C-alpha cells in the first residue's frame, strides 16, 4: 500500500506552530514529523486541546491571524513546499488539492445559501465552467456522497436538511474538486452512531475510488482502528507515538497510547473494566521539565520528571516511533 520510493503525497517535517498571547507564548504543534502517501489514511489521535485541530489548520495555512503562526518546519505537498507559497497560490491549493471537512455539520454550512450554491462555489473557484453545468455538477457531487433525490436537495437551504445529510453535503463540497488530500477534523462527533458509521464507510469508498489521502483527526481510537493505516498520537502539542495501526495496537510503546486504547470498549477483546486516564493535561503555558505526560503516567519514574524523552525507535526498524524513556528499557 505504501510507495516508499516515490515522493510522498504529504510530508511534514519538524513543524512548529507558535501561539502568542499577552500572557506568553506556547507551541500547540511542536516538532511534528509525518508523511502521508496516496490512498493512505493517517489518524491523528489525542484528547481535546492536544493540538490536533491546530495541526490540521496549519496544514492548509488557515491559522488564526496575529495569534498563531508557523514558526519553523516544512509542509511538502508532492514535493512542493506549501509554506513558501503566496496567499493567492495557497488559495488555489485549498479546496482543490487539499480539502477539509469540519467538525460540526450543524454550523459548517452557510445558512444563507442553498446547498447547490455552496457546492458550485468550489467549482467556480477551481474548475470554472459554464453556469448551466454548475448545477449538474453540484447534483453529481451530491450523488457521489449518496444523498437521495439530489435534484431537489440541491435547491434546499441547510436548515431544511438533517444533521447527517448536512454532513454529507460538507463531504460533497470537500470531494467536489477531486482533491489529493482530505483532512477530516472530527467529522462525526456530533452525529449519532449509525449515521457516523455510514459516513465513515462512505469516506472509505470515496478513497477507494479516487486514491486520495485522508488525514483523520479524532479522539476516538475505535474509529482509528477501522479506518486508518497509520496513526499519530498527540499529547500536549507533541507527537508521542507514531506508526502503523497494526503495530500500535499490538504493541503500544507509550503509556498514553496504551491508556487511550484501554479507553475504547472491546477493541482487543478486553473483558475487564475500561480504563480512564486520571488527571488533566498541563496548562498550555505551564513551565515543564521532563515528559508532559509524567504527572498522569502510572509508570513514570524520576527520569520522566527530570528530562523530556527524545523520539525513540520502538521496534528497531524506524517504522514505529515513540517518545518515552521506557522504550530504552525494553
Amino acid at each position: 500500500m505504501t510507495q516508499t520510493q516515490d515522493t510522498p503525497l504529504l510530508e511534514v517535517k519538524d513543524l512548529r506552530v507558535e501561539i502568542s498571547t499577552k500572557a506568553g507564548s506556547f507551541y500547540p504543534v511542536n516538532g511534528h514529523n509525518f508523511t502521508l502517501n496516496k490512498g493512505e489514511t493517517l489518524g491523528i489521535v489525542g484528547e481535546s486541546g492536544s493540538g490536533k485541530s491546530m495541526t490540521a489548520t496549519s496544514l492548509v495555512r488557515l491559522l488564526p491571524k496575529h495569534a498563531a503562526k508557523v514558526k519553523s518546519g516544512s509542509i511538502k505537498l508532492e514535493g512542493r513546499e506549501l509554506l513558501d507559497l503566496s496567499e493567492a497560490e495557497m488559495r488555489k491549493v485549498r479546496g482543490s488539492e487539499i480539502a477539509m471537512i469540519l467538525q460540526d455539520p450543524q454550523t459548517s454550512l452557510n445558512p444563507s445559501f442553498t446547498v447547490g450554491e455552496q457546492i458550485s462555489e468550489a467549482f467556480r473557484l477551481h474548475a470554472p465552467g459554464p453556469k448551466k453545468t454548475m448545477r449538474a455538477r453540484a447534483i453529481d457531487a451530491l450523488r457521489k456522497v449518496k444523498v437521495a433525490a439530489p435534484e431537489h436537495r440541491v435547491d434546499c437551504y441547510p436548515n431544511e436538511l438533517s444533521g447527517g445529510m448536512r454532513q454529507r453535503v460538507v463531504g460533497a463540497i470537500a470531494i467536489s474538486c477531486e482533491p489529493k488530500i482530505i483532512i477530516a477534523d472530527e467529522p462525526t462527533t456530533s452525529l449519532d452512531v449509525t449515521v457516523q458509521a455510514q459516513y465513515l464507510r462512505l469516506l472509505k469508498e470515496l478513497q477507494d475510488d479516487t486514491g486520495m489521502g485522508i488525514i483523520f483527526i479524532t479522539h476516538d481510537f475505535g474509529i482509528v482502528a477501522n479506518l486508518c493505516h497509520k496513526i499519530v498520537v498527540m499529547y500536549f502539542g507533541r507527537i508521542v507515538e507514531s506508526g502503523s495501526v497494526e503495530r500500535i495496537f499490538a504493541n503500544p510503546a507509550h503509556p498514553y497510547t496504551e491508556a487511550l486504547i484501554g479507553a475504547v470498549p472491546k477493541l482487543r477483546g478486553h473483558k475487564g473494566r475500561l480504563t480512564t486516564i486520571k488527571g488533566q493535561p498541563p496548562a498550555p503555558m505551564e513551565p515543564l521539565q521532563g515528559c508532559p505526560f509524567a504527572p498522569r503516567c502510572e509508570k513514570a519514574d524520576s527520569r520522566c520528571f527530570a528530562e523530556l524523552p527524545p523520539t525513540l525507535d520502538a521496534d528497531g526498524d524506524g517504522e514505529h516511533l515513540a517518545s518515552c524513556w521506557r522504550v530504552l528499557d525494553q
Partner: protein
Amino acid sequence: MGLRTALMCKKFKEYAVLKYLARRVASSLFALLVITVIVFLLSHLSGNPVDALLPDDASQEQIDAFIRDWGLDKPLWQQYATFLGNAVHGDFGTSLKWQGEDAMGFVLDRMPATLQLGGLAILMSVVIALPLGVAAAVYKGTPIDNSAQMFALLGQSMPNFWLGIVLIWVFSVWLGWLPTSGMGTIYHAILPAIAIAWFQVSALARLTRSAMLEVLDAEYIKLARVKGVSESVVIWKHALRNAAVVPLTYFGILAASILTGSVVIETVFSWPGMGWVAIEAIRGRDFPVVQAVIIAYAVIYMISNLVVDLLYVAIDPRIRND
C-alpha cells in the same frame, strides 16, 4: 420523509411567508388603531374638543355645525367611531393656522419633502455604517476598530439639532460651501441629511460590528476559507450576508429614529416637510393638522416596518421556513 420535505419545500415556503406577512400586517393595523385612539382621546383631554379643533373666533353656527358633523353630542365611543370613519377617508377637518386648507391634504403636500430627506439620510447611514462596522470587525482591536468605536460613541451622544447647527456654522457660514436652510437643490439636502444620519451611522456601525464578529467566528466561514475562497469574498459575501440580518432588525427602530430626527432637523434647517408642519401647527394650536401629521407619520412608520419585514424574508432563508 426527508425526500417529501424536499419536494414540499417550495410550496411550504410560499405558504409560510404569506402567513408571516399577514400576521405582521395585522399587528401593524392594530398599532395604528391604538394611535387613533390615543389621538382621539388627547383631543378630548384638553377639555372641550370644540376649543381644540375650531378657531377661537368661530361663530355659534360654525360650532353647532361642527358638533353635528363630528357627533360631539353623542357618547364617546360613537364619537370615536365617527372620528375613525372620517380618518379612514383622510378627513381630519380643516386647518386653523393655514385657513381653509384640508388638514390631511396639507400634510400630504409636505410628505414628499420629508420622504426625500429621510431617504437620503437612510442611504447615507447604510453606505457609511456597513463598511465602517465591517472594517471594525475585521480589524478588531486595531486602531481602525478603536477609532470606529470612538466615532460610534461620539455619534450616539451628540444631539442632532446641535450637530445641525454646528454643520451650518462650519459648512455654510465659515466655508460657504452649502446653503444654510430651505429646500431646492440637492445641496440643500446634504447638511440636514448628515445631521439626521449621524446618530444612525453610529448605531448601525456598532450593530454591524458585533454581528460580523459573531459570524466571522462561525464554522461556515472557516469552511469557505477551506474551499479556497478569497478573504474579501469571505467577508462581503459569506459573512455579511448573514450578519446583515442583525442590522436589518434595527431598521424598524431606524425608521422611527429618522422620523423623530426629521421633526427636529426640519425645524433646524427650515426644511418644509411634515416635521416642520407639525411644530408650526403646535405653535399655532392647529389640532386638526397635528392629528393628521401624527397619523401620517404613523402610517409611514408602519409601512417602512412592513418593508423591513419583506427584506427580512428576502435575506434570511431561516425565516422563510420558520
